[in-house]
């Protein structure tokens, strides 16, 4: 009798652990990396910051031509409200690549958006750091509110990633990140 009860409990515990694991897995598949899609014709809401987005951030990444070859991150930057594409804004990008982690200086750089509000940066192939293949993207200039993103690649073997985002107007009292 006792034996049976304990066995059932143990099995329950393991099932629970597996179920908990499955639940833990879910967000990875449910939350798409470019979750910034907007209703057509509607008013554009500012993109929300992502948890851990500012990790290993260093302000004022130098403007670069590329950070290696093999992976392309690109996207469209819009203004909240009317959704007007923002030209000539600085987008800072850093990520762990085959050449080293996020803090390696050659894995960090800035690009400007073009006339259509698009940015594009080629990097070395992205590798997972801290268990997920991801990229860090920051907007951190006076024109609009600071925004930190941390999109996760669908697969570590992906060669491209599109990350569009919408910037909110800068609020004069907002504290600047150090």
């Amino acid at each position, binding site marked *: 009798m*006792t*034996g049976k009860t*304990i*066995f059932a409990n*143990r099995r329950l*515990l*393991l099932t629970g*652990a597996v179920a*908990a*694991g499955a639940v*833990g*897995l879910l*967000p*990875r598949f449910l939350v798409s990396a470019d979750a910034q899609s907007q209703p057509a014709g509607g008013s554009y809401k500012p993109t929300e910051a*992502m*948890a*851990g987005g*500012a*990790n*290993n951030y260093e302000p004022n990444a130098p403007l670069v031509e590329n950070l290696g070859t093999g992976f392309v991150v690109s996207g469209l930057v819009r203004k909240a409200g009317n959704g007007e594409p923002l030209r000539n804004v600085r987008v800072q990008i850093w990520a*762990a*690549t*085959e*050449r*080293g*982690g*996020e*803090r*390696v200086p050659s894995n960090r750089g800035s690009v400007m958006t073009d006339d259509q509000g698009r940015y594009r940066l080629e990097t070395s192939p992205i*590798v*997972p*750091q*801290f*268990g*997920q*293949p991801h990229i860090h993207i920051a907007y951190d200039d006076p024109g609009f509110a600071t925004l930190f993103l*941390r999109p*996760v690649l669908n697969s*570590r073997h992906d060669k491209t990633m599109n990350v569009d985002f919408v910037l909110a107007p800068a609020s004069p009292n907002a504290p600047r990140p150090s």
Partner: protein
Amino acid sequence: MRPARVEARGRLAAWTVILAVAAVPVIAAAASPLQAGRELLWVTGGMAGVVALSLLFVQPLLKAAAPALLPARSGTLWHRWAGIAIAVLVGLHIGALYLYSPDDITDALLLVAPTPFSLYGVISLWCLVLTVLLVATRRRLGLAKRWWRVLHSVLAVAIVSAGVIHAVLIEGAMEEFSKLAVCAAALATTTAGALEINLFGPLRRRRKLQSA
């Protein structure tokens, strides 16, 4: 009673399988092409976690599979040292990764990390910390041996279950098949070990006493 030579051969075969299941994921992770671009602290922190995972699989056997696999006395001794090694390796895992990327480890420890596996790592960590505290104080607390066994087993199952989920959800240097194999093996030995120590062992001893 089986002849001693047959028994020794069986033991050798069992230990060969155990060492293979434990060593292959460590070797595979060390040989991963992902290690090439990593800095020393990152490699150290990552590999410490991998070795700790492998030890979690062997650890219950040292205690619960005696005297079939090794003499009970040396089993207890090895179990103690392996326990110390697991605690030190987990400390190294977190310490080295903290030095490598303080932001990410701080997020994980404060449960605000975007990565779902961090939570399970932290659960496993706290159960391990509790185990270490109990090991250090159980005599002073006057904890009865029977209750110590139950507590230790419950915490061990929690450490391994959470640790396994932590490892499985991580996309990193570990090779998938050897990772899943050692994770399944660790769950199996921990569950079987906990049942043996708390249930089957005492039951067998009681039957022996009754039949004597």
